[in-house]
């Protein structure tokens, strides 16, 4: 890669090679000017090509450097993070171990205190229980004696009462049986009488039902239902039988 790699080497002009005065004369000013223009254009073109080529090379080089730099930085950062993690873990583990040791000590102390307290309470409860048991046994013994005496006294009374009740029950049972018998007898009599009365009433009702209804209608309609109020109904019925009456009269 070279800045002027495509340029042709400048050849030094020797006096032997240089144009002579005649040449110079031969090459007029116009041609020289044209050649100069041509050379300038050529030079500009060569310069532009070289610049473009240089730019491309520069871009490629920068990209490669970027990639390599990124890889290098990444590797360094990873290594640093690993180191930091290892140290941090060690530190935290150590801290936790220390705290756990302290907690264990404190817990053991509290457990000891609680155990002692429980043991003391249990002892107190046991003592109270023993005292209560003694008191209860004494009370039960007293109650037993009292109950036995009372039971004996009441048993005699209950026996007497039972005998009296037995006698009363026997008497009541006999009376109840008599009453039941009488009640049954009365029931039968009443039922028979009711049946008889019912039969008589039903018979009378059946026999006189039509008369009763007629009588009721007569009473109900009799005076209030005069011929004047019946007249429209009578004429209506006569209209219905008109033809039969006409036929009978003109027979």
């Amino acid at each position, binding site marked *: 890669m070279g800045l002027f790699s495509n340029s042709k080497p400048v050849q030094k002009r020797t006096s032997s090679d240089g144009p002579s005065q005649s040449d110079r004369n031969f090459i007029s000013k116009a041609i020289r000017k044209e050649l100069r223009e041509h050379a300038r254009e050529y030079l500009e073109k060569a310069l532009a090509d070289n610049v473009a080529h240089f730019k491309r090379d520069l871009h490629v080089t920068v990209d490669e450097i970027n990639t390599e730099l990124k890889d290098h930085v990444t590797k360094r950062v990873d290594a640093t993070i690993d180191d930091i993690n290892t140290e941090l873990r060690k530190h935290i583990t150590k801290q936790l171990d220390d705290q756990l040791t302290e907690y264990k000590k404190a817990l053991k102390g509290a457990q000891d205190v609680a155990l002692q307290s429980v043991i003391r309470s249990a002892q107190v409860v046991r003592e109270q229980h023993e005292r209560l048991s003694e008191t209860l046994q004494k009370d039960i013994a007293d109650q037993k004696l009292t109950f036995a005496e009372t039971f004996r006294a009441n048993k005699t009374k209950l026996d007497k009462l039972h005998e009296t009740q037995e006698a009363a029950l026997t008497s009541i049972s006999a009376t109840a049986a008599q009453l039941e018998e009488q009640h049954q007898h009365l029931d039968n009599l009443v039922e028979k009488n009711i049946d008889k009365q019912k039969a008589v009433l039903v018979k009378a009702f059946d026999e006189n039902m039509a008369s009763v209804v007629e009588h009721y209608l007569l009473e109900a309609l*009799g005076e209030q239902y005069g011929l004047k109020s019946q007249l429209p109904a009578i004429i209506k*019925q*006569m209209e219905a039988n008109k033809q039969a009456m006409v036929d009978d009269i003109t027979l």
Partner: protein
Amino acid sequence: MTKTASVAYQYSDFKLPPSTASKIEMARLVHEVEWIDHELTTTSVRSKAGIHKHVEPVFSEQLRDFLDENKVSLIELSGRDRDQLIKQLRLLKEKAPVIHMTFATTADSESLQQLIAWVRESIHPQAIVAVGMQPALVAGVYIRTPNRVHDLSLRSQLEGSHDVLVKSLEALRG
């Protein structure tokens, strides 16, 4: 139109007024006409004998209704026409069809006249009505025409519905 002498009467042409409803009233009408005829004949004989005694016969309301209804002037009739009228009235009394009507209550005259008017308009124009009363009918009327009976009473309807009534009462009695 006034009936004059030599008019031939036919009993079947007579119209009976509502005031002449029963057989008795019919007989009374005939009797009254006969009596007036007798009076008029007597007056006529007396006048022929030179005894002028003006007699103005007094008509009952019933007779006046009949004469008006049939447009007959009894005074103006000759003796012969009166005889014929009496004869036809007697025939009418005998031949007029009689309808027996029995009611459950007393028949008031207004209702009776309405019934007679209906009978004469619908059944026969010369029908005579014989009225009776039977409370056992409860309501309605029991009609007897010459050959038939029409029991239009409530009792009859009750008897017809006796079974229904018994069933209803038995149903109520359970």
